[in-house]
């Protein structure tokens, strides 16, 4: 009797987390290089919970809902022109490499700027790595150009080539905020293969699609309401059962 409520509850807990993930996707609709996320559901066979109410086979195991994992959507976002020479967008499966206090982080957000020391940094102030360390510009250098292959040059000549990283499986990456990703399990980046191009004066937008998020949102709210009703009718059933079965003869 209790099991119906508990299964419903497990689904409601998961739906709430799903809503949190949708909310985070929508909040980051305008975050450059953002990668949307979706929750993966899994059923969980409870090893001990059994329902003797089923007629045959007599001992049916109960399925609970579990959020097994969340998957990132690594599809590319739309590329928009900004006209800013230090904005770069990546086409193809590759990542910019950023140095966060000695540790390598990866990002698709190419809204770079220059800091007081002349280094090329992300919007969060972390130096962007070239194949020979950070890139810095001297005072008075102008006309920064970045070729499709990633070679950065200014009025003072070639400055270096932007380092790009790729992974066999992008799922080793987890997000750490500030548009950065970290590789887990010591996964080492490999050289990007295939057609990777850098577009100067453009920025990759978030790959979150507002329409899809809204439909997911509707699905989540409706499923949640439905479960609330189910739990309620389950409760009424129990209420009636107690009322009838507990009546004394006479």
């Amino acid at each position, binding site marked *: 009797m209790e099991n119906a409520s508990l299964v419903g509850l497990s689904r409601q807990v998961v739906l709430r987390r799903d809503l949190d*993930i949708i909310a985070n996707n929508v*909040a980051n609709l305008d*975050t450059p290089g953002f990668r949307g996320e979706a929750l993966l559901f899994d059923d969980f066979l409870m090893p001990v919970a059994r329902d003797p109410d089923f007629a045959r086979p007599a001992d049916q195991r109960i399925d609970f809902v579990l959020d097994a994992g969340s998957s990132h959507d690594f599809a590319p976002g739309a590329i928009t022109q900004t006209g800013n020479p230090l904005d770069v967008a990546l086409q193809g499966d590759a990542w910019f490499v950023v140095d966060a206090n000695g540790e390598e982080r990866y990002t698709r957000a190419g809204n770079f700027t220059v800091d007081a020391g002349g280094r090329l940094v992300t*919007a969060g102030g972390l130096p962007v790595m070239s194949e020979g360390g950070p890139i810095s510009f001297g005072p008075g250098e102008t006309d920064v150009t970045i070729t499709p292959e990633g070679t950065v040059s200014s009025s003072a000549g070639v400055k270096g080539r932007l380092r790009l990283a790729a992974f066999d499986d992008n799922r080793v990456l987890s997000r750490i905020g500030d548009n950065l990703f970290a590789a887990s399990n010591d996964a080492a980046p490999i050289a990007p293969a295939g057609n990777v191009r850098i577009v100067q004066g453009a920025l990759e937008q978030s790959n979150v699609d507002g329409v899809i998020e809204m439909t997911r949102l509707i699905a989540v709210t409706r499923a949640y309401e439905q479960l*609330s009703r189910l739990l309620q009718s389950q409760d009424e059933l129990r209420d009636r059962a107690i009322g009838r079965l507990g009546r004394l003869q006479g």
Partner: protein
Amino acid sequence: MRALNIAATGMLAQETNVAVISNNIANMRTTGYKRQRADFADLYYQNLTRVGSQTSDSGTLVPAGVQLGSGVRIVATPRVMSQGELERTDNDTDIAIRGEGYLRIELPNGQVGYTRDGSLEIAADGTLVTQEGFAVVPRIVVPADARDIAVSEQGAVQARVGDTSQVLGQIQLTTFVNKAGLEAIGDNLFLETEASGAGRAGNPGDPSYGTVLQFHLEAANVVAVSELSNLIAAQRAYEMNSRIIRAADEMLSATSNMT
């Protein structure tokens, strides 16, 4: 309900975005104005199930954990320092800077400001000043009987005084390593900051300095069409975030209506 807070950060960030866009549109006709842009970044993540944690004694690992984000924030509002269009004005004390560099201005409190706005005027004592009456550094004094003021591309200011042509002074430009790090204080003026680095003065036309163009002003680099499309996108994103709040509210009320 984490979703309520996450959607609130989204709405807050979009509000700032709209503020930045409206300031750009308001300054569409401001001489030398450089448009700003709101840069977003995601907030920190909470790992409910960490990627790569062990799921059994035989060493199987979680291939993808559950990561819940906590929303978005505005990380910076950098200025896009592209060249604005040069408009001809036919005023002999209007100068436009083509390329890198700022005019150095002496502020009334003794500080030094920088500007791209070259709509200069002549003060009562003959000094070349900005529209607010702040003197251009190095000071250039125009004699009362000077006629036909001419500014060369290299910034030399000449005028005809009586029958002779006379050099009145030299306009200097200042460049910065990180122009985007200048602090705007209004009135088209900027202050040097730690982020911008120290300014380097030089003459127009020197290597890596721009040139000056008389009879012209630099218009704002705001493109109305792209600002308006940004505004529409920001408004829709704001609406979607508010829709999340409503959905979270509906779910909460479905819970509280359970008896």
